[in-house]
């Protein structure tokens, strides 16, 4: 059984808010922008403590991204905050031209990503954002798994010179990674060691993968769970080391199959070590209203689905 325990469920967006506040205190160049979702993004503490470094843009996401690009000219490190849908799809061209192609040091921080946004439904449940962002040359893409890791990732990306997409969510989920663990961009973390199947997960599905590993162990299957919080650049070494041992892979993510973590891992394995693989992801559909738990089950993303995928891949 894995040794991780929930120290008290929290939302990953609050990890972002806590990290941003800490950055505000430690780095005077950090500034923040928000498009009328300060409370939802948990940016209120930063805004209250550093009003001169907080820019409320109103409901104008395209302008917010452009303004963030401009703030880098003068050495600021801007963090933008809005929902994941409005952080990516709505402003793709602004990110592409004014941030990525221009090589600007903007941190695009996106909450309410994926199905687990819940009742607001498909208009807000973007499942394509990681694909959109990872296609942009030079963009770093990160989807941390819990409060502690989101806070650590928020702090870490301020030190990275270049554009970053940081994805997190709304629901309270188990907080199980160590609070004092620094985030290393591009480093995947092996959470449980196993020899039968490698489970590569990120975001909210890392906890589901750990639960799945427990269920698999009860069936005599030893799963190696790896947290791929960084989708780009992908930690090829950790992936290949694990796969050389297990020879079987399951990926799990709260995203479309097209363009997500599984797609990156499939590409890497196809090029370096072709390996039987199953993908737990949304399969070319939009989401809908419901509770986060209902949606994870209906769209095939919960621990039971990861267990089933592992059993399938072991029969191949």
């Amino acid at each position, binding site marked *: 059984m894995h040794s991780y325990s929930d120290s008290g469920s929290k939302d990953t967006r609050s990890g972002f808010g806590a990290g941003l506040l800490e950055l505000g205190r430690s780095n005077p160049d950090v*500034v923040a922008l928000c498009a009328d979702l300060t409370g939802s993004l948990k940016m209120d503490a930063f805004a209250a403590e550093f009003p*001169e*470094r907080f*820019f409320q*843009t*109103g409901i*104008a996401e*395209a*302008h*917010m*991204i*452009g*303004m*963030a*690009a*401009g*703030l*880098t*000219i*003068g*050495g*600021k490190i*801007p963090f933008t905050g809005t929902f994941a849908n409005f952080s990516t799809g709505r402003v793709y*061209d*602004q990110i*592409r*031209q*004014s941030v990525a*192609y*221009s*090589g*600007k040091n903007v941190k695009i921080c996106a909450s309410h990503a994926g199905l687990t946004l819940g009742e607001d439904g498909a208009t807000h449940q973007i499942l394509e954002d990681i694909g959109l962002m990872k296609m942009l040359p030079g963009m770093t893409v990160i989807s941390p798994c819990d409060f502690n890791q989101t806070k650590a990732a928020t702090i870490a990306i301020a030190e990275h010179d270049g554009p970053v997409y940081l994805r997190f969510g709304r629901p309270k989920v188990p907080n199980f990674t160590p609070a004092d663990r620094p985030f290393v961009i591009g480093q995947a973390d092996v959470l449980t060691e196993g020899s039968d199947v490698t489970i590569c997960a990120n975001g909210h599905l890392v906890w589901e993968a750990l639960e799945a590993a427990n269920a698999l162990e009860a069936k005599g299957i030893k799963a190696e769970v790896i947290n791929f919080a960084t989708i780009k650049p992908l930690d090829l070494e950790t992936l290949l080391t694990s796969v050389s041992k297990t020879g079987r892979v399951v990926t799990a993510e709260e995203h479309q199959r097209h363009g997500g973590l599984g797609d990156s891992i499939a590409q890497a394995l196809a090029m370096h070590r072709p390996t039987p693989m199953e993908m737990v992801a949304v399969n070319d559909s939009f989401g809908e209203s419901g509770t986060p738990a209902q949606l994870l089950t209906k769209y095939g993303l919960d621990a039971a689905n990861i267990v089933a995928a592992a059993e399938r891949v072991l029969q191949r």
Partner: protein
Amino acid sequence: MTQQLHDLPSQVRRDILRMVHAVQSGHPGGSMGCTEYFVALYFDILRHTPAPFNMDGQGEDLFFLSNGHISPVFYSVLARSGYFSVEELNTFRKLDSRLQGHPTTHEGLPGVRISSGSLGQGLSVAVGAAQAKKLAGDDRLVFTLHGDGALQEGQIWEAALYAGSKKVDNLISTIDANGQQIDGSTDEVMPMGDIGSKFAAFGWDVLHIPQGNDLDAVRSGLREAIAKTGKGKPVCVVMQTSMGYGVDFMAGTHKWHGVAPSDEQLEAALAQLPETLGDYPA
């Protein structure tokens, strides 16, 4: 200095036409219409350090070109004011050049601080840079240029609302009101109404330069704009220009928006534009 200043527009127009002709691509019309603006800005108005180029531009006035397709005039004026060698103009739009079809920071061309080409993004970037200056206690100014057609992009009005409402008063945005866009006149494609009144309604201080192809009129208009900064409002300059100005058969029409002159047309055009400061070597 004044003589050289007045010699520049003809030479810059020669650069524009020769650059576009050499690769048979690029945008001469808007470039020629904005030549006086660029000459006034880079040789008279801006307090800037061309070399060594500093991206952050601390202590310098900054300029952002939002309508990036008029890169030929931008490149000519950057080269002739010392950001890079005039010889490099002959690499325009060629493989491995820093002078891409639309301006970009990607190849590290000195003088360019943002990529532009996809329209309507430059005002937001300038607002951000202006806010960074305020945070740093830097009293220099931020200038932008936009086409009148490019104001049809919604992001411009997001940025205009922000700048007016949040009192970004270290910003001077000039609108190149040439009344033309790709598919025809703005009146045919999308009538723009009273541009100055629109910006005024968004909280900007507005002034007009009716003769945007008169170098001294542009210089004094921009000086007047500078005098209006620091008073709680961003400043909008509505500048009337003639697309293709300087060559009789190119002036006043949208037809030269993105069309290169033929060999004969280049010869006829250059005959109307004295080589005042020396052509760049082909």
